[in-house]
């Protein structure tokens, strides 16, 4: 329970960054933090006390942790890398057009 709450707090730090920061680079970093928290939460949810990693090494395996969230998070991490690259490309284009990273100024200069 404490672990879940701390993980949720990490997510909320990212949410705070998206809500309150005006710097586009900081917003990219905040979205990254939210992604970390979501991935970590799924893995926390599949942990089984005293179990080992879900890879067979011998004939008689003991209890193992849940492999399903691990598989989902593995794809999610790589997708996150792709979307981070896309966000970076968008921000680079915005900087080329407006010469600033400040979202308030970009809004003012519209048109």
């Amino acid at each position, binding site marked *: 329970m404490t672990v879940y709450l701390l993980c949720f707090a990490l997510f909320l730090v990212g949410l705070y960054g998206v809500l309150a920061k005006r710097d586009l680079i900081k917003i990219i970093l905040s979205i990254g933090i939210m992604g970390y928290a979501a991935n970590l939460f799924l893995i926390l949810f599949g942990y089984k006390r005293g179990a080992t990693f879900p890879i067979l090494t011998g004939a008689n395996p003991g209890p193992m942790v849940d492999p399903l969230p691990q598989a989902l998070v593995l794809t999610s991490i790589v997708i996150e*890398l*792709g979307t981070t*690259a896309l966000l970076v*490309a968008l921000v*680079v284009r915005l900087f*080329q*057009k407006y010469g600033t990273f400040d979202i308030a100024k970009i809004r003012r200069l519209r048109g």
Partner: protein
Amino acid sequence: MNKTGMTLIVKTVTRITVWMILLYGFYIILHGHLTPGGGFGGGVILALALLNVLLAYGRDYTGKWLNIPLLEHVESASALLFLVVGFLGIVVAGSFLANFLSKGQLFAILSAGTIPLLNIIIGFKVAMSLFLVVWVLAGIKMSKGDAV
């Protein structure tokens, strides 16, 4: 000797280590069904090896060393190959992405049917797409006004 990129020491070290990093990436991909790793991790390692060359030697030299249009074609073709394997599953075993090859002996390198095949395809896909993103990002100049 080209002048762009980093110093001679970095270039020499990169020239030696890039092959080892590529070998490690292929090892991780090929053993993906036996040990931790697999197509995603191995693909990112391959992309990082190519990225190492890009950072050390600069963009022009890397563009001569690597055949970039070929990499783009590999990237698109691997997505298509994944679909082809899926449809082969329909033809051979009756369902999409069915594991139609022989399962083999557990813990053998040639086992687990289509899993190593799909691992290799995904490894190339991830490696090429991530490297090409950095390649395109490295080609732009960030300055005010040279827009659109």
